[in-house]
């Protein structure tokens, strides 16, 4: 019961209380990119959840090895990057084998792998093992952290996409703020909302 409670506490914390995209800025550019491609939002978020969960879990297990226990940030970076790269290559190798029997064209396969690479090598995925390490989470919490990162990303992308749709048809936006600047402002407001949950004093 204690494990389940800790699991959900870590999950909710990452998704809502401290949404990684809005309160930490992790994966912000990928979130904007995905929000502009509404058809790919779910798939991309699933990929993020998959890579962050697997990387977080493996990295947490690696930290049990005495040589890597209490290692510096520099050492952690080297280990986590190698783990993430291995996870990527193994996943791609498996998917390639599975796709051989499918009727996907070469272009579709390439496009899919490009997307896979973007989903695996970004700040939100690499940040999860670091957060797990800093927060001294256990294995179950590391999994919750990874899954939560995917859900947090999905929430962020959905909110950004909704804003994008409204901003696109709003002709009252000043000409200089059309497009990217207005979207940045909108994301800043969302960040403000999520930061407010943390109960921080923001202005003065």
């Amino acid at each position, binding site marked *: 019961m204690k494990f389940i409670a800790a699991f959900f506490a870590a999950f909710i914390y990452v998704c809502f209380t401290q949404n990684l995209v809005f309160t930490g800025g992790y994966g912000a550019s990928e979130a*904007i990119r995905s929000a502009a491609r509404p058809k790919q939002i779910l798939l991309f978020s699933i990929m993020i959840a998959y890579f962050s969960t697997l990387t977080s879990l493996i990295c947490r297990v690696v930290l049990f090895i005495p040589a890597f226990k209490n290692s510096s940030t520099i050492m952690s970076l080297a280990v986590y*990057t190698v783990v993430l790269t291995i996870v990527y290559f193994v996943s791609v190798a498996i998917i390639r084998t599975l796709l051989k029997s499918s009727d996907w064209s070469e272009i579709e396969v390439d496009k899919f792998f490009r997307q896979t690479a973007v989903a695996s090598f970004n700040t939100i995925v690499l940040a999860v093992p670091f957060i797990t390490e800093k927060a001294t989470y256990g294995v179950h919490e590391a999994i919750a952290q990874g899954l939560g990162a995917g859900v947090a990303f999905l929430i962020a992308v959905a909110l950004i996409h909704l804003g994008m749709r409204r901003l696109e048809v709003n002709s009252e936006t000043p000409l200089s703020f059309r497009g990217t600047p207005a979207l940045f402002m909108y994301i800043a407001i969302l960040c403000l909302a999520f930061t407010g949950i943390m109960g921080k004093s923001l202005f003065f």
Partner: protein
Amino acid sequence: MNNQSYLFREVLAKNPVLVGTIGLCPVVAICTSLKAALIMSLITIVTLIVAQLITSLFLKRIKQWVRLGLYTIIGMLVVVPSMILVDKFSPDMMLALGIYFPLLAVNPLIVRNCEREAVESNIGKSLLTSICAGLGYSAVLVAVGFIRELLGAGSVWGHKLGFIKPAEAFLMPLGGFIVIAYLAAALRVYFRNLDPEFADELIANSRTNIKGSNKAKLQLKGAKRGAVNTAPRRKKKKRKAEPEKKQTFEVMTLEEAEELRSGSLPQVESTVQAELAPSDEMPKVSQNTSRFEFVTLDLGAEVKKSGDAERFAAAVAASKREKPQRRILNRQGQEKQVKLEREEYIEPVEKEGEDE
């Protein structure tokens, strides 16, 4: 933009953060002071140069999915020595940068530049583009770092300025987004003053536009007209401006029209031609104005008049307003003449397929 220098185009017009919305995490999260911004800029430029050179030299022939995995390793190989150096010379900064520092290894700017530039071009060009992209990114980092330190901590390069009351929000990601929003808007204003067409193009092709949607372009048109309507507009096909020229009307009597219909009159000799300037209300004909069968516009459609002078005038005026595109009455086309006979007068018909 044609006359602008290559450097200008690469650094400002293709700015990774303000135009491309790439590599936002370091900008909004860790770029909270000028010192941090400079360290980050230096590491980003070095990482970009190294990654692009390695890609340009060794990774061109490797499959893309393998290459994409190797960029992170390259990034890590540059960031690790940088971290060691920063830890040695400025341990406080190392602590301040926290877990964001190692995340520079997966900066999407590296992947984008390597895939777009290094794979496609030679070493020289690859080096140049990496420096330009690094400078563009660094320019934003330094500007954001300076502004956020000033407003968020009330200091510059660590020196407290007494007259500014710090607002902590600027040290958080939300402050970073606000600052880059204003910087992006300032860049737009600069481009608009320089080349309005390019500025419009920038909005229309913005990376933040929803893919497959033309709403941004329409919204831009709406803004140009000064419209405040938030409803999406239907796309209108642009019509080329008609040159100022006079329209010629061919007017014939009922008897002549009958002969034309029966085919016995190959060419109407007694047709009266009346020139009509665009500003005129209706054609001015010199003779046989009492009863006319057809009025033929040289530019296109015809109207039929049967006795009623007012309706005749209205029909001509309507045909003028609409600028008809299709000729209804053809002297060789018997079928169309019969069709005309059945109706009192024919409104000009637009070309098929034309929008609105």
